């Protein structure tokens, strides 16, 4: 098993079961993800046999109650799972983030008992795959401007509009779709195969190639009235889901950064130039020191955020700070690791450029880096700079 770096003895802040989950996920990623991921990435294909295996471990809905197929675990455990998955690939972690935070969470929090019984155990076991439709072609950072509409018609709602950049869209059995009903943002469950609903895959990505990204198109798509999430009213409902997912992303970025750092460290110690390992040169040591330091800080930030979350003291602006910082340093570390590897850094013999390309997406999805800057700015000053 890869025991990883723990320069600052942060493991001593984790409980025995948190460590056991982390180590289990780590060996799962070593054995099940790393051997297949480069090929999947090259072929622009999500490894479809992974979700069932991940479900066996309890990756989907870990913090939800056992009666709905959850794991009754804390948020630190959820975070550690995302960290280890993204050490494999951001696309694999994205799948888990969507399933857990953007599909299971809203159904659990805003759904009816019947919706929970029907969907949560199926999603936990990966019998069903979910996706989350909020972003639109013309509305990303301002989701409140969405144009997708729902209209009540007897025992049905009729949806019209389009969503874009939807992870898992094409392979999803159920979509949590946000649309305006009488001017108010509401959540709806739309099943695969519903007439008027299509989910074509988006092609040509240079990033997250081992992940399915789709459009969701609704043309007079008629769904039963009971498919509305009754508890979700207003934009704060989908935003609450995003806060959950961003929490996991802050941990995931640590995993991608760690993979790049460990690759660079290993390479620097074995690659010789001028008859010395390149790790002996000051400019390389400077890079490695930056990487180790920033990963250590990111781990502490996310761990503290997790503890706050478990005490219900975490806010969306805490989550913004962790997501913004950790993804930013992860991308810097990936680029730096590419530098350390020189020409070898561009080959898929090493994971570095795959992570780097993935992190370019992670930086601007789930709230762009800049929007998180403004969320924190608003929390500090009390003045919103984006409206």
């Amino acid at each position, binding site marked *: 098993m890869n*025991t990883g770096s723990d320069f600052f003895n942060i493991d001593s802040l984790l409980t*025995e*079961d948190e460590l*056991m989950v982390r180590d*289990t996920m780590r060996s799962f990623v070593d054995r099940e993800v790393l051997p297949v991921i480069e090929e999947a990435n090259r072929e622009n294909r999500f490894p479809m046999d992974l979700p069932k295996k991940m479900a066996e*471990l309890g*990756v989907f809905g870990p913090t939800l109650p056992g009666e709905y197929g959850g794991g009754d675990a804390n948020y630190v455990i959820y975070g550690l799972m995302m960290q280890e998955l993204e050490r494999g690939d951001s696309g694999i972690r994205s799948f888990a983030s969507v399933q857990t935070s953007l599909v299971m969470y809203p159904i659990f929090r805003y759904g009816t008992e019947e919706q929970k019984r029907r969907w949560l155990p199926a999603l936990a076991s990966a019998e069903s795959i979910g996706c989350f439709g909020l972003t639109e072609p013309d509305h990303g950072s301002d989701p409140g401007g969405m144009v997708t509409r729902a209209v009540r018609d007897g025992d049905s709602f009729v949806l019209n509009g389009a969503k874009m950049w939807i992870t898992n869209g094409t392979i999803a059995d159920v979509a949590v779709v946000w649309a305006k009903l009488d001017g108010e943002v509401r959540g709806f469950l739309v099943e695969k195969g519903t007439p008027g609903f299509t989910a074509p895959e988006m092609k040509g990505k240079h990033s997250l190639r081992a992940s399915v990204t789709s459009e969701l198109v609704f043309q007079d798509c008629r769904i039963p009235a009971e498919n509305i999430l009754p508890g979700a009213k207003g934009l704060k409902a989908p935003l609450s889901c995003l806060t959950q997912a961003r929490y996991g992303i802050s941990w995931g970025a640590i995993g991608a950064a760690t993979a790049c750092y460990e690759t660079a460290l290993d390479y620097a110690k074995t690659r010789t130039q001028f008859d010395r390992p390149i790790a002996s040169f000051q400019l390389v040591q400077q890079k490695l020191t930056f990487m180790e330091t920033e990963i250590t800080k990111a781990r502490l930030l996310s761990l503290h955020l997790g503890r706050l979350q478990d005490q219900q003291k975490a806010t969306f602006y805490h989550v913004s700070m962790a997501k913004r910082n950790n993804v930013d340093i992860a991308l810097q570390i990936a680029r730096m690791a590419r530098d350390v590897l020189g020409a070898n850094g561009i080959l898929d013999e090493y994971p570095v450029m795959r992570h780097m390309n993935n992190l370019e997406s992670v930086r601007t999805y789930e709230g762009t880096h800049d929007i998180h800057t403004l969320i924190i700015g608003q929390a500090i000053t009390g003045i919103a700079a984006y409206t």
Partner: protein
Amino acid sequence: MNIFVCVSHVPDTTTKVQVGEDGKSIDPSGVTWILNPYDEYAVEAALQLKEAREGEVTVVCFGPDAVKETIRKGLAMGADKGLHIKSDQPRDSFGTAKALAETLKDREADVIFCGRQSIDYDGWQMAGLLGEMLDLPSVTVASKLEIKEDGSIEAEREIEGGMETVVSKLPAVISAQKGLNDPRYPKLQGIMQAKRKPIEDVEPSPYKNRVEVLEMSKPPVKSAGKIVGEGPDAVKELVKLLHEEAKVI
């Protein structure tokens, strides 16, 4: 069925082990500890047997308090109970087997599994010693195993240059070889439940080691190779050096 699995708490295979200050034990600082990999096959075999028949799986480990972590790994995989033979004094293989045997002798075990060896001290003795001490048949290094309803056992063992098929009968001690099965990952739900599963503590009777460790040392560092030349012209020089310097031909 009353199933026991004897497990060891060993340094992770990727840990760079250092010799401690006393020169005869390993330095535990910075060591990550894991469930002995061969014992994972033993735990999996026990769980599969339990799932096929009614029964209960107990994970047994000898050692200091730290080994509870490894017992809980077995519980997280799905075992029902733990049994911790507490001792801060390291023992030789015979002493460990003695502690296990005296603990298990009155517990009416139908089957006792262990790994073929612990990857720390590589004794390979446990299944044989336990079998003798408990007066049970032992089947060692099993890479294929069938335990039938009537309690008869058929196992395949890897031997030098081939396979051997043996039969025996429960109760028995069986040691697991790689390939016996594909050990499961502990599930999140299993890890969360492991905390609530009982671990019984027992004290072993006193024992004086029969084998004493005098010294531990790391293997000598390999010196860099020597390139004597290139192409056919170098062969003569190479042969000369192999004869005169390395003295291997």
